[in-house]
């Protein structure tokens, strides 16, 4: 354990799981979106739904979507800030199956019409996990630059992705595969030691059998919140 997990983190209260963790879920979702969010539907599950109001979970999730860090003093005002930026936010509750008690489902739409559906879990102490992306298992913690490829379950996709990464000198820290069923949809979650260049993602998107490419960059990107 890091010494500054003991003294720290510096965060906006009241709860590391319901507030700081929620900011991080929002933040990773924003990064996965990779474009300005136009509207978001936020569905709270379990303890997020029952105690979220008292913990500022809604404000925290939206703050994350706006690109704020866990210690940003504007977190309590995030809903107003989102409105002033023309972002539509809709809240609701949901009952997810086999989900962690601190879970949220978010349906996001970007300026270009791009959409993303994620399920995020706050595991305690500010640690989080993105368990699903677009209905498929993902398990992304956000500690590494992460490539998520949705493809048809057929031979060769892992080879082409890993060959491309080798070509770009990107080392794989961890590689996980999931599928809905034999010959159905499959997901590759690739946690990398280096960032991927933009053209690599563009190239992947054009490959036959690859349905969707999502990428989590840890670099601070562009237009953060004003």
């Amino acid at each position, binding site marked *: *354990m*890091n*010494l*500054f*997990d*003991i*003294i*720290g*983190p*510096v*965060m*906006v*209260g*009241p*709860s*590391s799981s319901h*507030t*700081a963790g929620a900011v991080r879920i929002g933040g990773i979702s924003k990064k996965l979106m990779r474009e300005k969010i136009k509207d978001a539907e936020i569905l709270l599950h379990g*303890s997020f739904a*029952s*105690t979220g*109001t*008292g*913990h*500022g979970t809604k*404000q925290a999730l939206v703050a994350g979507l706006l690109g704020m860090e866990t*210690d940003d*003093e504007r*977190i*309590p005002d995030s809903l107003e800030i989102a409105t002033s930026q023309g972002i539509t936010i809709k809240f609701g509750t949901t009952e997810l199956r086999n989900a962690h008690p601190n879970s949220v489902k978010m349906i996001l739409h970007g300026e270009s019409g791009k959409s993303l559906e994620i399920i995020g879990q706050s595991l*305690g*102490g500010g640690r989080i996990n993105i368990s699903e992306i677009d209905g498929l298992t993902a398990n992304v913690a956000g500690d590494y630059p992460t490539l998520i490829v949705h493809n048809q379950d057929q031979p060769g996709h892992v080879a082409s992705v890993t060959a491309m990464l080798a070509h770009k000198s990107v080392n794989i820290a961890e590689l996980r595969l999931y599928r809905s069923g034999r010959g159905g949809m499959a997901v590759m979650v690739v946690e990398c030691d280096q960032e991927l260049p933009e053209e690599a993602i563009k190239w992947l998107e054009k490959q036959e059998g690859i349905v969707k490419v999502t990428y989590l960059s840890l670099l601070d990107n562009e237009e953060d919140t004003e």
Partner: protein
Amino acid sequence: MSFRLLQEICDRCKNEEKEFWQIVMEDDSRERGVTAEESFQTMRNMYHDMKRADQSYKADRKSASGLVGGEGAKMEAYRLQGKTLLGDFATEVMEKAIKMGESNACMRRIVAAPTAGSCGVLPAVLLTYQTNYKCSEETMTKALFVAAGIGEVLAESASIAGAEGGCQAEIGSAAAMAAGSIAYLEGSDATGISHAAALTLKSLLGLTCDPVAGLVEVPCVKRNATGAMVALAGVQMVLAGIKSVIPPDEVVDTMYRIGNQLPACLRETGEGGLAVTPTAKKVEECLNKGCPLGE
């Protein structure tokens, strides 16, 4: 590698003829691959952030539920009228602990130490100590390293999460860390520091995590103040030459065992303890209906 035993830190202090805080800082710089200066500066920033959080307290803030707010200011007013039961120092510690807990509940920026719910204990004793005994910021930063070292052992060998170990893991840990850091400031060696932590932790063993309506408000905010008082008692015993009969690492291990034995209803689930009292149930009902509290 993180320390698993307080004795490990004590042994290294003796063998390398270094102070407790130095051993902890050197371990951090090795672990994270930063220089000792960088490690020290990061800790110093934490102290700044604690100070800033204390100074930005406002008495008129209420938490979203309306259950907490304004009570740190009541303690301050009581202190300022000049005659208190426990004296200025202890009263100011309680005041700062409540203020920080309230700020946390009101979505202000705090330093989790070790958690957000227990964020009041350590800054309360350290900030009050600094103003009353005129210590330099360097000295206070060293005291924070002492606290962090104790916290690391507790996290490694027991727990610092209420959901795992109950409130003993949060307020208990924070108080043990605070006691050790004040023992250091009062000139205790590594053994004295460990015993101050142990004497404090022993008195908070078994403390349940039973927040009303699942919020980090009741009883959390005020437990920061009482936890800080237990810490001061723990240090004072060490300063008087009193030691813990049960060795410090055995006390830490006891917290771990008790944490495992605590039923789930007493570990942050809101299904036991104070959370199921008639009053707590009424509060919960009221919040679910959206009616205002604390008016």
